[in-house]
């Protein structure tokens, strides 16, 4: 069998890698995933599990809408039982609260822009409406935005479901297998030297997350990526009072109440990443900002005890959206990383669109905004 033909190696068996593997394997490709740890060890499993189109960057919006469609019918992708285990809760809504004039005016601008683009998913909320939807919200709230179809899912279970679905479709996963070097084969395709041996395939997909730029560098390609460690706080269980996910606009605010009653507080506060050691640390010195933003919005929560914090490693690009597409001059090497802390929701669409592009041999127009070329020198405008 010609190695070029319909074979793919995917570096990184996180959610994006497994999702791409699933779609490719279903299209009849032979797919092997290589992971330096175990599948889904990092950002895929330890993110907050938000399923949101609310406040999505316009460039991500179409992909995000497609992803929502997949989440709504997750059973078709991963099977009914696995879909159940993912605890997908859509329709609880995500709400962005405007706590000052600047945030309110941004909100108004956002809604006008939605209308201009013919999108209807985000509705403006008055002060009264937002307070009614969010019991305990400060009287200072001026209004907000709601995306009623949004929600959340269990990230670890979802990562597992995609992984198992990819394997069921025929993808092979090699764990504890660090990639040591990449080499482009003379007639096209790639040879990968890894800890557990040599692998070859017609297409190589770099889904290495926080290590994406390192893998790109092995192929001689430079892509800008900062390794970050988004962190979260979890409180003791409290009386259920909040169904929607609450996010801030200019404030490091993001929280939801879990099914058991604990509050999961994020907001993009960053810990200390040590990508070379596969680990990261939460930094309590940075938590006051997130705690203060939460209390500014919900003053009654001051006495709720914070029980623990957590963090994980993620890659962030300079412009806040991922790199998805072939490398410069390498149609058989794709980069799919740098999701900047909001890749969980996108993952089924990423698998779908990247898979479709690889199978057809043409980059899907949905991926145009994500080309790594946008970072090329001299193209900064």
């Amino acid at each position: 069998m010609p190695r070029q033909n319909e074979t793919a190696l995917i570096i990184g068996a996180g959610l994006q890698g497994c999702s791409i593997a699933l779609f490719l394997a279903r299209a009849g490709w032979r797919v092997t995933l290589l992971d330096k740890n175990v599948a889904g060890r990092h950002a895929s499993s330890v993110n907050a599990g938000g399923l949101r189109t609310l406040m999505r960057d316009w460039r991500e919006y179409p992909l995000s809408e497609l992803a929502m469609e997949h989440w709504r019918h997750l059973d078709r992708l991963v099977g009914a039982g696995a879909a159940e285990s993912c605890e997908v809760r859509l329709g609880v809504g995500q709400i962005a609260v405007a706590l000052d004039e600047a945030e309110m005016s941004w909100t108004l601008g956002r809604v006008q822009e939605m209308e201009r683009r013919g999108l209807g998913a985000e509705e403006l909320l008055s002060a009264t409406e937002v307070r009614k939807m969010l019991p305990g919200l400060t009287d200072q709230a001026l209004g907000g935005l709601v995306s009623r179809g949004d929600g959340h899912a269990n990230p670890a279970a979802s990562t597992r479901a995609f992984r198992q679905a990819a394997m069921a479709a025929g993808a092979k996963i090699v764990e504890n297998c660090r990639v040591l070097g990449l080499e482009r084969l003379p007639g096209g395709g790639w040879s990968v030297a890894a800890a557990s041996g040599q692998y070859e395939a017609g297409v190589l997909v770099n889904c290495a997350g926080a290590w994406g730029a390192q893998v790109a560098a092995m192929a001689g390609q430079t892509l800008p990526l900062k390794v970050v460690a988004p962190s979260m706080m979890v409180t003791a269980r409290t009386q259920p009072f909040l169904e929607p996910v609450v996010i801030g606009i200019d404030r490091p605010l993001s929280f939801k109440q879990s099914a058991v009653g604990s509050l999961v507080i994020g907001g993009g506060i960053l810990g200390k990443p040590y990508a070379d050691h596969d680990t990261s640390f939460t930094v309590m010195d940075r938590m006051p900002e997130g705690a203060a933003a939460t209390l500014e919005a919900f003053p009654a929560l001051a006495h709720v005890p914070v029980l623990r914090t957590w963090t994980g490693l993620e890659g962030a690009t300079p412009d806040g959206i991922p790199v998805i597409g072939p490398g410069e001059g390498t149609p058989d090497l794709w980069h799919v990383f740098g999701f900047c802390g909001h890749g969980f929701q996108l993952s089924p669409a990423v698998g779908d669109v990247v898979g479709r592009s690889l199978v057809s041999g043409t980059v899907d127009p949905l991926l145009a905004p994500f080309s790594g070329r946008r970072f090329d020198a001299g193209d900064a405008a």
Partner: protein
Amino acid sequence: MSINAPLPDADVIIVGCGPAGMAAAVTLAEAGRSVIVLDMQPAPGGQIFRSLEANLCDTSPAGQSLLAALGPAYRAGADLIRRFRAFSGACPGIDYRPQTTVWEVRPDGTVGWLQGMNAGYVRGRQVLLAHGAMERPVPFPGWTLPGVMTAGAVQTLLKAGHLKPSGRIVLAGTGPLLLLLANQLHQLGVKPALVGRTDRLSDSVRAARHLRPGGLVPLVKGLGWLGRLKLAGVKSVTGLENLAAHGTQNVESVSFTVGGKRQTLPCDLLIVHDGIVPAIDIPNAAGLRLQWDGPNASWRPATTPDGLGASTLPPEMSAGPCVLRVTGDARRIGGADAAMAHGRVAAQAILAALDHGAGPSADALRAVGKALSVRPFLDAAFPPGLAQALPDDDTIVCRCEELTAGELREKIRSGFRNMDALRGETRCGMGPCQGRSCMVTAARLLQNETRAAGCPPTFRGRPPIRPIPLGAVATLSGLDPRATIRLTLEDKPENASEDTVDAPAE
């Protein structure tokens, strides 16, 4: 512009105000060093001398009989507490901060504290962890029923609450504290229905070869307790196994096996005790190296003889050398005398690290050796009993999340083969206790299922290791300016209409 590290708030920060912490604080203050002592309790004394000051002042007959029952070992702390108090508030001296919980310790000497709704960081040039021991967690069938308590908890209620237990009381387990408490209860007019020991005569016989001259006094003391219980007609058994507590709303009966025969006793209060082990939540979260103490089936921090810990972090992850020392029962179970002796040794080592003095004196080191010389005997005479065998599948291991040993075993077998993966999957250790109670059992289950040997693995400890109110987090003081540079994911989308990106179609 470079930002400097924050200045230290004191020469030394001591965590814990029991015998070891007080002895060290006094030694350091005598040498003119500034010391901050952080302690959870409202008054100095730790667990052993809990509420001693207040109880010494209580001249009521009930107070006097309590003091008599608690005995001379309890009153022995009075002198040290007096000396500690003499330095409190002096300048330089001891800045004593009671009712203060420590929720993070970093190898560089930064200590996170919480007092009421206030929290923050303080920094010491050196830090001494004297946070003591905890009772060995003992998961057995029914251990989470109301009416099952540990011996330490009963002593706390006696000393600080002046509460005496009543009804049909069964004591089960092993160790000096169990016998001491049985005697104290008897002296207070509370006659236990049964003292059931897991240790056997053969343990004592084997232990005898460890006897050193220094161990004779505790031995005589222990034989005295046993003799008095016998005289009082308290029923006693040895070699107790397979303890279980039964009841619906609370404990109604206990059952156990002795000599191959299953017995059941009606019971209103089951007091259990399986020895004490070093509390390792602070050292573990601080990233200090731990070692496994096989005979005691417990972790303890790996330290030099003067208590200096070793950070497990690679140098690039830690800011400077590790300045954490561990002393007292937090380092190695030895009781109050050993704790006081080692507190002085650790303080002398700290003084040397602060360019003062030549380090621990031969006298001080000898005193530690003498106080610890009885431990091999006690360890052999009172081996872990209730927690010796791993719990049955139906027994709860993690009480915060109500997880049984069977649920954990199943997850381990299905592939969650390291502690953090197991925690992430099951939530074991994620509750308010942050694994203090369940970690050792989960680690032993994991080792047993994976047939691993060596030091059992721990959960990764992240701050806060004790709960902090959200309002206190919002106003944390003493932050490190190098760490607080605003670092968030700045990913708010622009409302600008330019949405086309020049991306060439492939």
